[in-house]
């Protein structure tokens, strides 16, 4: 995909980072995703430097240089920098921030019971939040697991906690959504992107396909990807199914067909990076 690479090289901002559109503000997430997809050494070095320069004093990362409050994008930064031998110190500090961070938990028995009545979830479990002061959610929890594993901490207790958290938030019909499998007695359906990232995290954490919730999630994802039409859904779905060695059917060719003339997917560096990862030979 030379033109996808060209698009990403063209989309790199002067500060070395990438935004969610060409010319958009550089953010940690799209920059980290592009670093995972791109091989050009010069662009990668500049991207790495952007992420390193955005690290907050507490070791974590906000969404961009303007955000001094560290949050969920720390996981992306750690995951991407883990591939750079010269970024080890930053990775260690980032991983420490992740280990110390957790979403708000409800431990009071009465309040816990109330939360269970509404959402049918165990609110005492440890996961990761989008930002400090929030409860834990599926997406940031899965990303944090991926980051800690990349940082060499697969056996850390927080990774195991994260896996338990994901099991608890699995949707009754398979897969994951933002983290509410139920709401006031109603099943809330899974989504492709949340399911994909959760499956990637569980695989990285060493979970096998014997696990019932994984089997159901893969089955959900296989069906959903077969009908998916958007580049983001196709890309994330393919990444997860490939990771679990599941046949992706004609999804890669549909993803290929949705590439724009400029080499991008939706003109978005983040989605383009995800598509490149999905279509990587």
């Amino acid at each position, binding site marked *: 995909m030379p033109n996808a690479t060209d698009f990403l090289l063209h989309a790199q901002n002067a500060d070395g980072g990438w935004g969610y559109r060409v010319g958009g503000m550089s953010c940690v997430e799209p920059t980290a995703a592009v670093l995972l997809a791109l091989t050009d050494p010069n662009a990668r070095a500049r991207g790495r430097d952007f992420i390193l320069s955005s690290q907050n004093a507490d070791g974590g990362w906000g969404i961009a240089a303007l955000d001094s409050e560290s949050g969920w994008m720390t996981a992306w930064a750690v995951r991407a920098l883990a591939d750079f031998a010269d970024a080890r110190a930053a990775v260690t500090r980032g991983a420490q921030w992740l280990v110390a961070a957790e979403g708000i938990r409800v431990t009071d028995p009465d309040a816990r019971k109330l939360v269970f009545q509404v959402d049918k979830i165990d609110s005492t479990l440890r996961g990761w939040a989008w930002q400090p002061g929030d409860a834990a959610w599926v997406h*940031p929890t899965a990303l944090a697991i991926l980051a800690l594993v990349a940082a060499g901490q697969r056996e850390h207790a927080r990774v195991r906690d994260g896996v338990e958290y994901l099991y608890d938030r699995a949707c009754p019909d398979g897969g994951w959504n933002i983290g509410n499998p139920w709401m006031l007695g109603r099943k809330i359906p899974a989504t492709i992107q949340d399911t994909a990232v959760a499956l990637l995290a569980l695989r990285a954490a060493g979970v096998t396909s014997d696990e019932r919730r994984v089997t159901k999630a893969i089955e959900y994802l296989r069906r959903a990807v077969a009908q998916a039409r*958007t580049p*983001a859904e196709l890309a994330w779905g393919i990444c997860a199914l490939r990771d679990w060695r599941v046949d992706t059917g004609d999804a890669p060719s549909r993803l290929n067909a949705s590439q724009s003339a400029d080499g991008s997917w939706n003109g978005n560096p983040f989605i383009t990076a995800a598509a490149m990862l999905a279509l990587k030979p």
Partner: protein
Amino acid sequence: MREKKSLISNLQSPISRRAFLRLALLTGIATGAGVIYKATEVVGFERWFRWMARGNRARLFAPNARVALAACAAYDADVLAAARAVWQNATMPDLRGARVVIKPNLVDFVGDLPCFTHPRIAQAMIQLARESGAREIIVAEGTTFRRDPQAILDATGYAAMLAHEQIAFVDLNYDDLVEIPLRGGYTRLKTLFVAKTIRDADVLISLPKMKTHHWADISASVKNLFGVVPGIKYGWPKNTLHIQGIPAFLAELADSLQTRACAVVDGIVGLQGDGPLFGSAVPSGIIVAGTDLLAVDATCARLMGFDPAQIGYLDFAAWAGIGAIDAGKIELAGEPLARFQRQYERPPQMG
């Protein structure tokens, strides 16, 4: 013994009427001050007093808010004509030369439930803005439950409509960000990141669906503003902001957005019961518009058969003087409200 008797006699001697009244007044003031101090301890007396004073000033001296209603029986009727009627009757902003951002509610799609603003009314607003001479028209939303809005745009018909109208969609969850000060002080947040597209708009048209909501009681033009805060900062479903307290945060949003905002509400078919996603359709045949978002929402509450004073965020924000909800402070124009009033089923958590 005699001395003791004399002392008791002095103590029991009646005080003058004037002294008694003074004492009662002082006791009353002290008790009242104590009660107010205790009751306002959480937010601080100064803030409470500022909000209370502004609210009273608004109730006593602010001009009436104007809210317009227009009948529109169905989405295949002449929605543009109805939109023109409310726009004119509600004395809405002049759009000539303006950068206009239309913000529908695209919370998600669930089968054929009318939980989102119908694309036909968004299309009518685009056409209205175009014929009014808007310099630039953008449709923008930051969805709540899905990181990828494309499936929602496809499933709701927005993708086709926007392509037909050749109008750009901006995903506010991934927009460039600006940090704005929160001037109300109703929550613990001092600042808020919002999408730059919203900050740079000359006119923001909140274009919600009229519906009930299991956490906010109702969802209309103010709740719809949740979509202007970016997911990349506050996550999906932007729960940090709910944690601040829904009435307080909605008041903060209504008070602190520096963009000139107005509202047009899709009440052609509303949603009752377990909103914002589930519940059931209620054909209501109405479009509501105004520049005072609280007055618009209060009118929607009445159209749905609820007392606005019983809706937490409306009651709080009106008390703090952010807008009007009293029927006596809202001047209605266009169709008579009573003709379109329905009794919507209450959401499960509503008191």
